[in-house]
């Protein structure tokens, strides 16, 4: 399958070169234009355009009623979004940093994720919670958490995490159109790291589908979000040492693209999973279960995980030591290949 070809055939006539944060902005703009029940709520997202400028210019176009600077209260933002969502609106709630989602955790755990089930489908909450996550930009304490498993563990909410501008726009549009709640994680380290062609119109990237971003034969390297560039760099170094890596970008963390993982691991017989979140209770463990359930007899080496350590994300002077590095990933690739 040629991924690049498929992408091109989807593209509308015009494209723009956008960074990821611009692509996120463009997705929201597209959806605010497309559906007037779409509204954005968050701290500093209106007049200021967001602390990362993700909502830059949107309040000027769509007004204070649709791009709303809320009081400083995450539980308030998510809780009122539930009420808005069951009553005709499509809220996009911004949590300024993932480390500040915790006051809203109660609302998400006890209501956002359960309303459809407990009303047997009568009520649903078609809302998106967007949040920048991850370390690597020398941010102050608590600003650098990767808390995806607090949400992949939570039944009733989808978890999405793009690694590129194209996917950021397409996945965010899909998340906004999704009839169920979606947690949308944006790797802040990648916000301005790369520009690529992004279609100007409305398009979506399917939630629940990952992508093989590099073909290889010896080992499957699985990553998402900010760790995708790290995985790719390690794969390149491995290539120079004669180890051929297949790299998967998962894109959706719940539900997992089990077929993509199984197909690749059955071919290579080896897997290295990379994530920034802590190892214990990390998503890598669920991915190992997928491999165990689908591909055990194909394995030629134990599955390797390269993750953040089981310590609170440190102050920034030590963040480079906390996060998986290409060097650590390469070590695990070597270990798997030379098992």
């Amino acid at each position, binding site marked *: 399958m040629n991924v690049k070809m498929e992408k091109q055939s989807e593209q509308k006539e015009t494209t723009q070169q956008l960074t990821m944060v611009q692509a996120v902005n463009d997705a929201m703009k597209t959806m605010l234009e497309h559906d007037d029940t779409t509204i954005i709520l968050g701290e500093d997202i209106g007049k200021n355009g967001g602390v990362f400028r993700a909502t830059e210019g949107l309040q000027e176009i769509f007004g204070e009623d649709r791009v709303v600077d809320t009081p400083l209260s995450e539980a308030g933002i998510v809780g009122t979004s539930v009420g808005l969502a069951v009553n005709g609106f499509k809220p996009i709630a911004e949590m300024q940093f993932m480390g500040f989602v915790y006051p809203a955790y109660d609302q998400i755990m006890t209501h956002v994720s359960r309303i459809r089930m407990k009303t047997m489908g009568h009520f649903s909450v078609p809302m998106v919670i967007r949040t920048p996550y991850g370390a690597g930009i020398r941010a102050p304490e608590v600003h650098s958490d990767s808390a995806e498993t607090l949400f992949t563990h939570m039944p009733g909410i989808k978890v999405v995490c793009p690694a590129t501008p194209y996917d950021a726009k397409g996945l965010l549009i899909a998340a906004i159109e999704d009839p169920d709640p979606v947690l949308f994680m944006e790797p802040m380290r990648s916000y301005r790291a790369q520009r690529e062609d992004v279609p100007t119109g409305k398009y979506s990237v399917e939630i629940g589908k990952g992508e093989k971003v590099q073909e290889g034969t010896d080992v499957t390297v699985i990553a998402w979000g900010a760790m995708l560039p790290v995985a790719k760099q390690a794969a390149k170094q491995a290539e120079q040492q004669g180890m051929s890596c297949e790299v998967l970008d998962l894109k959706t963390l719940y539900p997992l693209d089990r077929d993509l993982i199984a197909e690749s691991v059955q071919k290579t017989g080896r897997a290295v999973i990379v994530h920034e979140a802590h190892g214990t209770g990390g998503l890598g463990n669920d991915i190992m279960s997928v491999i165990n359930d689908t591909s055990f007899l194909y394995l030629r080496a134990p599955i390797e995980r390269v993750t953040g*350590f089981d310590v609170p994300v440190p102050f920034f002077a030590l963040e480079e030591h906390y996060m998986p590095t290409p060097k650590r990933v390469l070590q695990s690739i070597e270990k798997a290949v030379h098992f």
Partner: protein
Amino acid sequence: MEEQFPIKKIIDDQGNLIDSSYEKEINEELVKKLYYHMSRIRLFDRKAISLQRQGRIGTYPPFEGQEASQVGSVLALDSEDWVFPTYRDHGATLTFGADMTRTFLYWNGRAEGCVPPEGKNIFPAAVPIATQIPHAVGAAWAEKRKGTKNVAIAYFGDGATSEGDFHEGLNFASVFKTPTILFNQNNRYAISVPVEKQMNSKTIAQKGLAYDIPSVRIDGNDVFSVYFETKKAVERARQGEGPTLIEAVTWRTGAHTTADDPTKYRPEGQGEDVINPIERLENYMKNNDFWDEKWIAKIETELTEEVESALEAMEKYPPANPEDLFDHVFTNTPSQLVEQKEAYLELIGRE
């Protein structure tokens, strides 16, 4: 509500005493102490901004304009009391005895910056908004249970009053009548959101009414009203009369942090009429024969040297040690974490 909670002032912008009941209490020693500390923390603050611009520390949230609020309140405490600051309250913690080198280290991404000097009850700056308020209530509650006269002060901003932790903290303080000073610096913005959009209430002081907590609204740029009103609250707390909510109305002169651009959200010229608190105290000193040029020149030299040598010590500090990632998570590090540590140290040792 604005009538019920008028902004109390002791001196006006020109430094004239407008509440003569304090005439006797304001003496040269106090004036010099307040001036000294306000000058000291301003030098620190300006130095930190310039270091950030040169890439020598990380993102930094300046407190210029809030020196009177921070110095006046913290000097009303005794050395055994507790301080629960936010990220913007390093002026208060430095005045209370936090180490300046470590304060620089904090803004250079080092956990060493959270460690207070031995015997100083200074909690690490709370980054998640309003979370420190219940902590201060709990620490004060403990002092009450232990039968001491010590109190705790919680610093928080106008934006913090929107979080649940603010309301939960106030309610606990009220229910358990804890010796807590709830010290709000209403600097009129929470990043880009002006206080008029943060709340529909006209004052923050009035929020005390709902919890039956005595509250007062003061001019946070008048260091005397900050100092004497905080003293009153501290006295009440020590006497077992419970918490007080203080709203100090002030002004954040600069950006929210060095990563912020206030021209995006502040109307042009807003705040230009605010006389900064140090200038205001200077006016008072000049009006009252406390203006001692020689002394001022002397402390300026001393303070500049202090800040420079703290900075030098910060830059000479041993580099951050990766072992610290693992060593302080638990009293006894679990074996699985020890394994992670050893494997990692071995890997980087191969370099």
